[in-house]
């Protein structure tokens, strides 16, 4: 049984149909990269997976539990699906450790000692333990993004969604964030990434999904997909980004 299963997902913004029927199954421990041109619907698909966007039609299941249509409260959702944003979105008025502890304290009602222990553990995992009392503005982009990953991990989600998490970073800072994601992948975390990092998509993901005009146009293992694309749209896309 797939961990995430999406069936016939449709989403329109006004007249514009952004998702035209998405079917997608993702196994536990799988790393899936979603690629495609801007406007192809890949970010919208990701945002439907944690209900930041409400889709118009179709269903999303997590294990055997319905996730969409208000079946899960935001609190439940956050313990199943974590998300990291392109622009980090750390809370600027809180220190690193307060950022990470907030959701466990407020949403899960974890005791403070326990929340702190969890926070230190996830911050250690992303290599940010020594910056625990810094404010986000004092950190580099790469460091902020690693804290954002730790903040999502603190809720112990089953799936981590990454929405172009390296796109806002200076080139020399991309590596440190990708290394953290690689570590997570190796530990068996289920990752769904919308990404422009083709090298990362090829080297780390188990499967690459190419979206085009609101549909999954082509998908498969990265080696095959990048070396022998079946459709002209994908060959063109690969040529334009590599």
């Amino acid at each position: 049984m797939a961990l995430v299963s999406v069936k016939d997902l449709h989403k329109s913004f006004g007249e514009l149909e952004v998702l035209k029927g998405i079917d997608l199954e993702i196994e536990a421990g799988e790393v899936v990269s979603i690629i495609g041109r801007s406007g192809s619907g890949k970010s919208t698909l990701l945002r439907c997976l944690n209900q930041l966007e409400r889709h118009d039609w179709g269903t999303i299941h997590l294990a055997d539990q319905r996730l969409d249509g208000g079946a899960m409260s935001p609190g439940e959702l956050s313990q199943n699906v974590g998300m990291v944003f392109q622009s980090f979105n750390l809370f600027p008025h809180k220190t690193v450790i307060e950022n990470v502890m907030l959701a466990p304290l407020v949403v899960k009602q974890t005791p403070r000692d326990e929340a702190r222990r969890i926070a230190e553990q996830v911050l250690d995992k992303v290599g940010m333990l020594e910056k625990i009392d810094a404010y986000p503005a004092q950190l580099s982009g790469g460091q902020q993004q690693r804290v954002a990953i730790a903040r999502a991990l603190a809720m112990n989600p089953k799936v981590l969604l990454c929405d172009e998490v390296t796109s806002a970073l200076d080139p020399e800072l991309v590596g440190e964030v990708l290394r953290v994601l690689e570590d997570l992948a190796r530990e068996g975390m289920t990752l769904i990434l919308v990404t422009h990092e083709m090298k990362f998509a090829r080297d780390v993901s188990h499967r690459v999904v190419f979206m085009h005009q609101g549909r999954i146009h082509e998908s498969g293992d990265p080696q095959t997909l990048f070396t022998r694309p079946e459709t002209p749209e994908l060959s063109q896309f690969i040529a334009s980004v590599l």
Partner: protein
Amino acid sequence: MTDFTLWDIVRNLLLAGRWTVVLSLIAFTGGAIVGLLLTLLRMGGLTPIRWLIRLYVDVFQGTPLLMQLFLAYFGAAVLGFDVSAWTAASVALTLFTSAFLCDIWRGCVEAVPSGQWQASRVLGLNYLQSMRHVILPQALRLAVPPTVGFSVQVIKGTALASVIGFVELTKAGTMLNNAAFAPFTIFALVALGYFILCYPLSRYARHLEKKLYGAGIR
């Protein structure tokens, strides 16, 4: 006719100046409480409530404070309420202040980037939890400089209460002038009084603004 020494004038103005300060404090405190209530209702409330609050804000922002004072004082009398100049001035200035603060504060809440809402939503916080832990602390920091800046407008606004017979700094100046006929001295002193009250606040607001943007909260 008695002779007024400069000290007589200053002393009388200082005594009346107390009431300018007290009325400003009442207006600002009352306005802040009502304004906060309106802001929260406007952010979270149902559409008709939001619409009513917007109308309220528009009416008080779109009419002169002087008319609001007249209505509170003479209008209430016409309706059969016997209100003192104190009450009328306090009520009118409180409502006036609340309308402006409501608008300033709404702007501050909306100025918190939408990514902050999304991040707290994704972490599982509900509307009230997001407001309390994420949005309001940031909005508050944004709100302090314009709020302190607006308090200057409130202080100067109290001068209008003189027209309904409330004896504060301006009214005292007018009365002294009727007796002493030294308009230049007296009104220069009145102006100086307002300046002494307002200038530190303006400076403080500017300082806060610099501190806020200097810290680079975004």
